[in-house]
């Protein structure tokens, strides 16, 4: 019985999402991000996927999370792990009308 309890606890840990980072995808299409705002948990990953037939960039110069993913063409994606809670503005440097916010809880 003791081993059974351990097995159940281990299964719950392995098959639950608790403690695991989630992955999200944000598209870049028609010179806009697919969402204007996204709420995620600390440690989650966002894949930014370029769906336009030209290059885009993704960057943030926020105090808590600074990154520059460079430029990448259609079909490619680049990822960022958000480890600090807060509201992170994210933009495309090439096309500054492309703006969104990542709310990290």
């Amino acid at each position: 019985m003791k081993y059974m309890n351990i097995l159940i606890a281990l299964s719950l840990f392995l098959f639950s999402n608790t403690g695991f980072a989630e992955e999200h995808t944000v598209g870049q299409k028609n010179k806009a991000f697919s969402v204007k705002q996204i709420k995620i948990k600390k440690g989650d990953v966002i894949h930014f996927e370029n769906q336009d037939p030209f290059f885009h960039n993704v960057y943030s110069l926020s105090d808590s999370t600074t990154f520059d993913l460079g430029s990448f063409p259609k079909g490619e994606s680049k990822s960022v792990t958000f480890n600090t809670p807060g509201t992170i503005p994210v933009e495309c440097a090439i096309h500054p009308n492309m703006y969104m916010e990542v709310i990290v809880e």
Partner: protein
Amino acid sequence: MNTKQFKLFTMSSVLVLALLGISQIAGADDEIQMIFKAGDLSLQKWLLADKPPVPKHNYPSHERIELGKKLFFDPRISRDGNMSCATCHSPMFGWGDGLPLGVGYKGKILGRASPVVTNTAYNSIQMWDGRKRDLEDQATGPMEASVEMNTDMHAITKLFSNSGYKKLFDKAYPGEKVGPATAAKAIASFEWTILSNDSPFDNWVRGDETAMTKQQINGFKLFVDSDKGNCSVCHSAPNFTDNGFHNVGLKAYGEKNPDMGRYVQKPIRVLKGAFKTPTLRDITLSAPYFHNGEASTLMQVMDHYNKGGVTKKDLSPNIKEIKLDKQESEDIVAFMQALTTPPVPFDLPILPLD
């Protein structure tokens, strides 16, 4: 319609269009197939709205536009009393100055060309490096810059208190404090009226088959084709700008201590030497071209892009060697000539003296 039927329909459509002599190309700026027939629905995205968006906090009333027009042409705004906004943004030069580089206070040659005012009210970001968000914000820039108008703010507030200007300010901005900030708002209202949205190209898009020549239509096809001109990747619909920033590989960027452009505002690698995409509307009125006037003619601009730029360092990833032949380049130039709205007579304002 199932997949097989859809494919059959698509193939039939292409065949019919081919038989009619009408080609379709996916634009460089998006993947929507364009059909190159006057008035076609697929072309309508290239039409600008009749009027630009109305600024939230500065409705361009008749009184504000009229006041702004006087201020725009009034040289007394500059410290030496010899330079108005129109000195660098003249209707005689397509609202530019016809010079490779702007000329500022005491004749100082500036680092960049005077950008044209035409259609800037449609844009979401201003200046070659995007450091100003809107026209209200931008209008104070040259006044404040010591190398440009170098305005004595105390002196112009005194100028605005003369009875003529005072009446105009009171009508345009009742209850608001008269000064540089109010003047900037009025100037922005006037600039809101400087538009180009009725060119032969616009008429062709609206349905006038005779508005553009065959060569110009072919130039438009090449312009939007990502495998040919690839121009619309940056000069996109409807104002022929993506409001974006690109290093287009100018010769000057290869020189010592080049102008870093947008990178100074936003230190992101892809912005090194990048400048805002200018509109191409009325482009025939505002040579020379590029942010430093490096090209004298539109054919020189085409030569530049045929080579994929001169300086390859930090080149925008959206720029590539397009390698068009002479005829194709001439066709695109012919198309760009169709982007000029026929100029109409312009009345200069009488300025308030006292």
